[in-house]
């Protein structure tokens, strides 16, 4: 039998224990529906409030988080999440408004959404913006739907090919696949740019467009970006920008100015919405002039102009050739939009530019400190992240071992084994909210681990050692597929 560090909430249950109770009914009793419409039992846990609190407190301590320390997970932008955002998003006026209330009663929400749309357009250089998508991948799907709708509206039906660089996030091809497009992979050149020759060869009148992350997942700003976009546009394709790496570009360059036609934001990366242990995020999408009519429905707009003392009336509008609705209601208002709005309001232009300047400085500083100890396959000035190889000549230590050993030094590991074009990749994104001491301690730890890889490789193979849990048997999980637990009294029935 496996040792149990913390029982499940079901195992902690004891029949008859009561937690938070509800008031007695204050209305005359009505009979329940016919018994054959009712469930016979409700096999859910029974605990007191204190049991519940201690259980989740115990679990929380098994987690490592940004509030605990350095979390340089590449392409995830694990920056500090300001505490004020937690308070603004929980203001009663936001918490307790129903999504279907008449617009006259929610002008505060609608002003916030409208201004955020305008700010994001200004920051990115796009002509139109939707706040509806729930996450980055959802924004991507939105963008690809608009690309498809654009070509369809022009009766350009032979376009079925999506160009995607080999360094792309896995969501890019998956999003293209959801529309039934075929994916053509474009290689990167020796400097980490899109290979222009390969791109030119792939560009023809069957191209839907190209999905490009810039800076890419190697952390490289494409030095030929204007040429890349020109090639795609010339063959009639649209240019999709994956905004996952926008933290490098605030106040530095606007993707819309470069010629991108559509881009999703990750408010949970760039604009400090917390990652929540796996969501909720928020993935607004910006578009160039020619895609504005295809945006999802509804958008926030001004229904009646204001004058003098009277503010405008904000409400919902439907774009002419909309792709439709991406989710119920209006997007991740409370958890996403309010937090991002607070964050942008507190930064202004200079503050936003400083975010990107220091995100890029921190990455380059770490890259400089590790150069010589770790191989940097694409070694030039990087943007907000860079990729090192987690392997050493003559050693069987792998990126995974290095990642796990970093936990013993109290750091969250970088992203590993991505991007796929680098062997044993360690993808490091420090973000702007780390100080020099932290970066130095992290670099020192990685340099020490490189020594350990030679002197005591078993220390790395068996890592982590000081965390409450060790390495996992992933094969067992997939083979046995135990996906839920039950109340102790119900186990025999399963």
């Amino acid at each position, binding site marked *: 039998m*496996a040792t149990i560090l913390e029982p499940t909430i079901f195992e902690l249950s004891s029949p008859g224990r009561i937690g938070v109770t509800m008031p007695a009914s204050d209305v005359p009793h009505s009979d329940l529906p016919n018994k054959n419409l009712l469930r016979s039992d409700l096999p859910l846990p029974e605990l007191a409030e204190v049991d519940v609190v201690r259980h989740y407190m115990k679990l929380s301590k098994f987690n490592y988080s940004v509030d605990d320390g350095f979390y340089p997970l590449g392409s995830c932008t694990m920056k500090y999440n300001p505490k004020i955002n937690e308070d603004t998003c929980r203001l009663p006026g936001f918490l307790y408004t*129903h999504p279907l209330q008449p617009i006259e009663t929610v002008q505060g929400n609608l002003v916030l959404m409208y201004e955020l749309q305008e700010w994001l357009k200004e920051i990115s250089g796009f002509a139109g913006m939707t706040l509806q998508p729930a996450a980055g991948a959802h924004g991507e799907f939105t963008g690809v739907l608009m690309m498809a709708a654009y070509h369809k509206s022009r009766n350009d039906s032979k376009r079925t090919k999506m160009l995607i660089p080999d360094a792309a996030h896995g969501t890019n091809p998956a999003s293209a696949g959801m529309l039934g497009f075929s994916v053509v992979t474009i290689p990167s050149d020796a400097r980490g740019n899109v290979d222009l020759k390969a791109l030119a060869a792939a560009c023809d009148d069957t191209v839907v467009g190209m999905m490009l992350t810039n800076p890419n997942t190697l952390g490289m700003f494409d030095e030929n970006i204007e040429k890349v976009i020109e090639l795609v546009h010339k063959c009639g394709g649209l240019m999709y920008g994956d905004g996952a790496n926008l933290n490098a570009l605030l106040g530095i360059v606007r993707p819309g100015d*470069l010629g991108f036609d559509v881009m999703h934001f990750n408010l949970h990366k760039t604009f400090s919405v917390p990652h929540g242990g796996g969501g909720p995020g928020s993935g607004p999408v910006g578009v160039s002039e020619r895609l504005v009519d295809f945006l999802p429905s509804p958008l926030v707009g001004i229904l009646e102009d204001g004058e003098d003392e009277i503010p405008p009336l904000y409400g919902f509008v439907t774009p002419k050739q909309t792709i439709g609705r991406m989710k119920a*209601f209006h997007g991740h208002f409370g958890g*996403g939009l309010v937090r991002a709005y607070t964050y942008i309001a507190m*930064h202004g232009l200079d503050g936003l530019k400083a975010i990107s300047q220091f995100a890029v400085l921190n990455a380059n500083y770490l890259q400089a400190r590790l150069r010589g100890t770790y191989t940097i396959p694409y070694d030039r000035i990087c943007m907000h992240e860079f990729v090192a190889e987690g392997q050493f000549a003559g050693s069987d230590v792998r990126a995974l071992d290095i990642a796990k050993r970093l936990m013993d030094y109290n750091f969250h590991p970088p992203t590993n084994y991505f991007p796929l074009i680098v062997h044993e990749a360690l993808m490091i994104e420090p973000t702007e909210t780390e100080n020099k001491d932290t970066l130095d301690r992290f670099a020192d730890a990685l340099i020490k681990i490189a020594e350990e890889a030679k002197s005591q490789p078993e220390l790395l193979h068996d890592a982590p050692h000081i965390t409450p849990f060790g390495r996992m048997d992933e094969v067992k999980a997939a083979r046995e597929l135990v996906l839920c637990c039950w109340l102790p009294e119900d186990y025999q029935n399963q």
Partner: protein
Amino acid sequence: MTYIPISPNERDAMLKTVGVKTLDDLFDAVPKKHRFPELDLPPALTEMEAASLLSEMANTNENVREHMISFLGAGAYNHYIPSVVDHILRRGEFYTAYTPYQPEISQGTLQAIFEYQSLMTNLTGMEVSNASHYDGATATAEAVSLAYAQFRGKRKKVVMSPTVHPQYREVIRTYSQGMGLEEVGDDVSIDPEAGPEAVMSLVDENTMLVVVQYPDFFGRIHDYTKLIEDAHAKGALVCIVANPTALLMLKTPAEMGADIVVGEAQPFGIPLWYGGPYLGFFTTKKSYVHKMAGRLIGETVDNRGQRAYVLTLTAREQHIKRERATSNICTNQGLLALASAVYMSTLGKTGLQQVANLCYQKAHYAASELSKIDGFGLCFSEPFFHEFVLCCPKPASEVNEYLLANGILGGYDLGKDYPALKNHILMAFTEMNSKQEIDTLVEVLKEME
């Protein structure tokens, strides 16, 4: 203000290590003519100023706790959330962590979501639950993707009941644009009196999925057992979109034979928040687990012999399968899955049964009182849970306007989606509505001219 913890001296030392003179020198790769644009943004605020600005904006709204009595539901419900829920959500260890890709230091999130999966399977009676979807509408659209994958695209028809939430039906249509599907059954001009069997005439050998709602959008409780039997006889799968609060009391969709049970878990510990973020739940039979989208947590052991949890069956997902994945979904509503798990645990079996009973009792008291008013009445005779359709003597929009002028947020105007139902309001009741509030509603409506 910013959150950058680097002093000017440290910055200069770091620039020197990198080998450039200024911060701007780091951006030489960016085309010069587009570099460093002037942005038209308002000046930066301090924390104190931002707090005040946001308070002011929030206060411009009229909310359902301080300004209005609310009887509005239609997919988002005003329930009480025990204090414990937000205290747990505010633990930085939970909300500032990433998706649990490193299980050795993410067991808190992993075990909590594993428990969430277990709570949802026990609630619906289904065999497996994934870790979450964006919301109820997208979870329903993902059920279509599952069915599409299950039949490898050979069956092309989705039959939807017109009493599935209108926005959910819209999202299904948006999502399936690339699949070449035929979506039928939700002709909103059909007789709303028609039962769920009405769509069955459309189910044939080309039908991959039948989608119905429970209770349906009009609040009615149908037993779908026969419908599911008939659909199965044609080889089609059946997805039930369920309200989780209703499931605390009603026969489970699993007992009726459903293949997929999805829904919106906002009623379980998530504030109204003007529509999001919410939590889509997705449960199904074990045999469909490989076709199911979304994250999945499984039990295992670590190398010290301790029970532990990991993300499993990741080979289904986009980062491995890329363009062959069923969906592009990756990280989504982790923290809200935690919220609903804490909600269910804190109320527990007893508290949850009380919530369900209160919803039922309040709605039935309101129904009996409202139908005593001249010109008003219940539109349908079927049993209902905590929502029902009220027939009014004049257009719903006018009734709602009148109610709002009297401090009452009325129900959902069904005329917006169902042309024949323009005098019909969908009214919702929860444990938050006191007898006094309901009596006020009745009094106000009695005086309507």
